C-alpha cells in the first residue's frame, strides 16, 4: 500500500493547502498534489467501484495507465485522479456503478 514518506505532521496545513470537497465533506489537502494522492492523504479508502463486479478499488499505478483511480470531479465522470491536480473548491465524488443509475 502507499505510504507517505513524511508524516502528515510535517506538512504545514496553514500555508500550502487547498480545500477539496470529497463526498460532501470539506477537507484541506496539500496544494499541488494529484487528486489520487489527496484521496490517499485523507484516507478516503476506495475511490470507485468496478463497473462489472462492483468491487471497491483504489489508485494503483499513479501514472495514468491503470484507470483504477477514476473519480467524479466537478460533475464529470471517469476522471483519472492521478492525472488531475487538486484545486481550491474542487468537488470529488466516488464513482459507483454509474450506469446502474440508468435503470
Amino acid at each position, binding site marked *: 500500500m502507499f505510504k507517505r514518506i513524511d508524516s502528515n505532521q510535517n506538512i504545514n496545513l496553514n500555508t500550502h493547502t487547498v480545500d477539496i470537497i470529497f463526498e460532501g465533506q470539506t477537507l484541506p489537502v496539500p496544494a499541488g498534489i494529484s487528486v489520487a494522492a489527496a484521496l490517499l492523504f485523507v484516507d478516503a479508502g476506495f475511490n470507485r467501484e*468496478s*463497473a*462489472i463486479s462492483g468491487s471497491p478499488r483504489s489508485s494503483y499505478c499513479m501514472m495514468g495507465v491503470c*484507470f483504477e483511480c477514476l473519480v467524479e470531479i466537478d460533475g464529470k*465522470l*471517469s476522471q483519472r485522479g492521478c492525472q488531475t491536480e487538486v484545486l481550491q473548491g474542487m468537488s470529488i465524488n466516488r464513482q459507483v*456503478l*454509474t*450506469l*446502474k443509475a*440508468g*435503470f
Partner: protein
Amino acid sequence: MESEFETLVIGGGLVGASVAMGIASKGRSVAVLDGGDSDFRASRGNFGLTWVQGKGAENPAYARLNIFGAGLWPSFSEELEGATGVPIGYRKPGGLEFCLTEQEWIDRSEEMRLVSHHTDGEFTYEMLDHDEVKKRVPLISDSVLGASYSPHDGHLNPLYLLRALQQNMISLGCRYLPNQKVASVIRDQDGFKLHTKDRQFFADRIVLCCGLDNSRLAQQLGMHIPVEPVRGQLLVTERVAPFLSMPSLQVRQTCEGTLQIGDSHEHTDLDDGTSLSMITKIASRAVKIFPHLENVHLNRAWGALRIMTPDGLPVYHQSEQYPGAFAVSCHSGVTLSVVHAGMVADWICGSEPHHLINAFSADRFNV
C-alpha cells in the same frame, strides 16, 4: 529445417488458422506460412460477431451455409476452449438489429422473411416493436422504432478466437511459420513451389488464405479471385455496468464491460486509419440508440480492412488448371470459422465438396 509438406496454408489469420486446424485434426501433414505484423490483418481488427440474421437474403446458398454454421458454434467453441484453455467468450443470446426509420423496418422485415424462406424456416426470427425491444434492452431511446431479433446470432472475443485456433492447430501437429510472406508460387511437375524472402517451400496442396493478398497469389496460378478492401472503423469505450444483453451490428458489450461500436463501410483503398468524421458518425448513432452513452468515454478507435468480393459472398475455389491449389476468401471469417475448420478442411483433404460450399467457386466471376 523442414520445407516440404503435404499441405501448405498461406496466411494464418482466422481463415488460415481455421482451415489448418481442421486439416491437422485429421492427422495430415500441414504447415502455415504467415506474414508479419505490418500486413493488413482483418482478423486482428474485427467486431467479433457470429452473425446470421439477414445474411443470404439475396443468395439462398449463403443463407443455408450461415444457418448451418450457427448451429455448430456452441459445440465448436466448447471444444476449442476445452482443448486450449483460451476463454474465447462465445455467447449466443441472439442478436438485435435496431430500426430507426420506417424504411429500415420494412427492409429488415423483408430480409428476414427471405432468409427464413431460403432456409425452409430453419432461420427463425421476430420483428419486435419498440415496447418489445425495451423489455429486453430497457435503456433504448424513443427513437428506436423496433428491431429484428434472431436467436442464431452470437458474439465472442475475436483475438482470443484467433489465439485459440492457432494454439490448437499447433498442438494438433501443424507447423506455424511466421514472417514467411509468400512472394511467389509456381507449379511444376513435382508440385507447388513457394518462395518467401529467404526460403523455399514445397507442397502437394496449397490453400491461399492470405486475405487481401489472395488476388495477387491466385493470379500467379491463373485463378481469378477478385477481393477489395472495405474499411470499417471501430470504437471501444471504457467499461460500463452491463446493460446490453445481446449484440447488435452497431453496438455490443463485451464480458469485460467495454462497448464495441462500429459498422461503417468505406472504400478507402489500403488506408486502414480512422477519421474524426466517421468516429463522430458512429458514436452519434450509438448515442441515438442509447442516450446514456453520451457521457461514456472512448478509449480507442481503429480502422481495419474487410476482404470483400464483388458480390459479398465467400470464395471456396479449387483451380481447374492446377488441382490441389485452393483459395478461401470471405468477409465474415469469425462467423464462418466453424465451417472453415469443418467442411472446407474436409474438402481440401480430398472429400467431395459439401453441397453447402459448392456454390461458391470463383468461376462465377469469369463472365
